């Protein structure tokens, strides 16, 4: 199953905009690449998931994408395929060719991270997906939170545009995109989460404020770079009607933008939050009607 909503965390000290190892070639931590995806924007897209997130949502569907590896080595011991090892420098090394995708390492990790991360340059990333290019409309950067890698993305998307493909970002909206001129020049569309409709709900759920996501939605819609907004409907945790009312008011005047209402699902959720209810079809339908009544034309419930 694809996990629809999934961003998070807390403690983001010094995010470097993707500039790891300054002075050398820029690299970014890539968690996963899905060659063909039907759910990450327009048409068929290659989805690239970057590691690391600046929110920590209670119901995060892939908590292993939140933090970067601290090289404690616990997963090296439990890996049944011998795909993980500890280097002389004390770093966890991942051999993709031996990996059997059993997820034992993710279950072992107590740090909300994954050892299966490849630190790639934009050129390496492009070469990795080159075989998919004839079959896709473009790529979607996702995460984790891909806007933490905005300098890297600028470079990667420049390469993507040269291949005559489209570039999308799937973001939680916490990092202001509107003043990133170089990135915007090579970015086609964003898909932005709207996780709650009040400051209080948003802080409770994600650990971060509501202001930036709302402003990003407004500004991206205004310059024609908003593909959709996404709300994960979670009963009892936030006031879902407030969220949808806010979302609808932000995009009702922009007819091309769609509102994607996503049913909260239990897959992948941390065990302490597994008790959260999944919303009924009736609840989803009510919210769809609410968005429609506020003037949103294109609504997808999934």
């Amino acid at each position, binding site marked *: 199953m694809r996990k629809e909503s999934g961003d998070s965390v807390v403690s983001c000290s010094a995010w470097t905009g993707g500039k790891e190892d300054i002075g050398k070639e820029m690299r970014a931590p890539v968690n996963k690449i899905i060659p*063909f995806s*039907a759910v990450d924007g327009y048409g*068929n897209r290659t989805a690239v998931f970057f590691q690391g997130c600046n929110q920590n949502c209670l119901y995060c569907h892939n908590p292993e994408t939140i933090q970067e590896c601290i090289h404690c080595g616990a997963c090296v011991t439990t890996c049944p395929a011998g795909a993980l090892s500890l280097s002389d420098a004390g770093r966890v090394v991942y051999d993709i060719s031996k990996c059997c995708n059993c997820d034992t390492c993710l279950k072992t990790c107590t740090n909300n991270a994954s050892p299966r991360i490849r630190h790639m340059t934009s050129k390496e990333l492009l070469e990795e997906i080159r*075989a998919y290019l004839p*079959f896709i409309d473009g790529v979607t950067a996702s995460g984790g939170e891909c806007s933490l890698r905005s300098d890297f993305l600028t470079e990667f998307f420049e390469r993507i545009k040269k291949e005559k493909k489209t570039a999308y970002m799937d973001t939680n909206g916490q990092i202001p995109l509107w003043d990133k001129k170089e990135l915007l020049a090579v970015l086609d569309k964003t898909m932005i989460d709207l996780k709650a409709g009040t400051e209080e709900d948003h802080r409770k759920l994600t650990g971060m404020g509501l202001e930036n996501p709302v402003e990003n939605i407004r500004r991206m819609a205004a310059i024609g770079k908003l593909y959709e907004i996404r709300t994960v409907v979670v009963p009892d945790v936030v006031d879902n009607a407030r969220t949808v009312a806010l979302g609808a008011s932000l995009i009702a005047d922009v007819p091309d933008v769609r509102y994607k209402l996503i049913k909260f699902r239990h897959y992948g959720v941390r065990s302490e939050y597994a008790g959260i209810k999944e919303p009924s079809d009736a609840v989803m339908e009510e919210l769809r009607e609410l968005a429609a009544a506020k003037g949103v034309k294109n609504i997808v419930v999934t």
Partner: protein
Amino acid sequence: MTKDMTKDILQVIRNPKVTFNQRLKDMAKIAENSVELVRYTEKSREYFENGAMMDMFEGKTPYRTRYCVPDFELFLKQGSKFLMLEPPKDIWEAVGNLLCLYHNIPADGGLPVYIGCLDRLLEPFVRDEAEAEKAIRFLLVHVDRTISNAFCHADLSPEDTRAGRIILKLTKEMQRPCPNMTVMYREDMPRDYLMAALDTAMTAAKPSFANDVLYRRDMGDYAVVSCYNVLPIGGCGLTLVRLNMNQLPKLAKDPEDLLNRVIPDAVTAVCDAIDSRCEFIIEDCHYYENTFLYQEGLIKKDKEHMIGMFGFVGLAECVNKIMKLQDPGERFGHGAAADLYAEKVMKKMKEEIEKRPCKYGKYGLHAQVGVMEDSSLTPGGRIPIGEEPELPYQITNFIRMHRDCDAGCGELFPFEKTAQHNPQYLADILKGAFSQGARYLSFYGADSDLVRVTGYLVKKSDIERFDREQMTLNEATVNGSGASKNLHLLDRKVRGEEE
């Protein structure tokens, strides 16, 4: 079929699972197989005996071609003296005339495998759309209930027509396996029409899509019939003799020997057998002279219109066996060396076929999708079910292994519900695959009742009913039930929602 004819007859007479018409045909097959008059060469006999070649149960005494592809356009233009039909003046007469002809096509199985490029045939008669829908529904229901064979195939042109729209709409609504359906895809076809076709495909498991540019180049004015067989309109697929490539390694010392000695030898065996069967059909039975289709110009007896189909299956098993490949990363569809060798085998086969003079018409290379008796045998040059790599690599491999299949090939992918909300997703894949040289693709929704078995369609509910020993209308269900169990067809990797 056993050696005891009385036993065979009793079995057919008493079989509780078939309808009367199916019983009648099974009886005829016993009669046909009671004598053997085709004059095979020594080489052909050797390959029939060693199991590397089969006649597809076409029968020991072929008195008709395997596939017959009449020029329906010409038929509607001129009517038919033999059938005492005037050229139609409205859509009801057009539909009526077509149905008359469908029941008079002499081909294996006694049922037509091709019922025309329906939108092109009917569009000139569409005046009132509601009336046209009624007439087309009448045609489709009649075909489904009387031809009752998912090998029956209708085509749709790349043009956006009212008739085409109606056919797509009814196909989506009716959810019936017959007729199977193909859209002749072109990059310049109207996007909106392509979307309508994809939308239908996701719910009804049809239409499939053929690469119009490639097939037009290879076959001229062509039709897709039965299970992705491609033949010229006004032509016949006289016979299909199949090479079971999984049996070739036992005849070879090593990969080089297989490539350089066994492949040429096997091509001789198959082409000899095709020639022998064609000789019987044409010279002994006077097939063409004995049908009004030929007299009235609806089928032609010339080099371009007589196709001897050279079928093959089991490229994957052949390569894995001769190269002794066990490691999943090295096997066919995954290992670079395996795929390179497989490509060489396919090229060699095509070269050998081209070198060989054809006694009647010409040979066409066809990636055969299997018969119900097959087990552990993968259609054509596909990657075995359960071993499929990521979709882009599966498609690329499919393209590589089927470049020379001028008489047809197919690959099919089940898709999850999420892809159904996004038909552009499929459009992108189609466009990419066809621009890279893919010949044919089928999609279907993973939760739809209609399932592609090896090329033809059956309803899952029909398979279940058949397995409970009830009669079902669609003959292909009988095949589907056996094939689904032997080949794990319902276990295909589902696309669109992977992680």
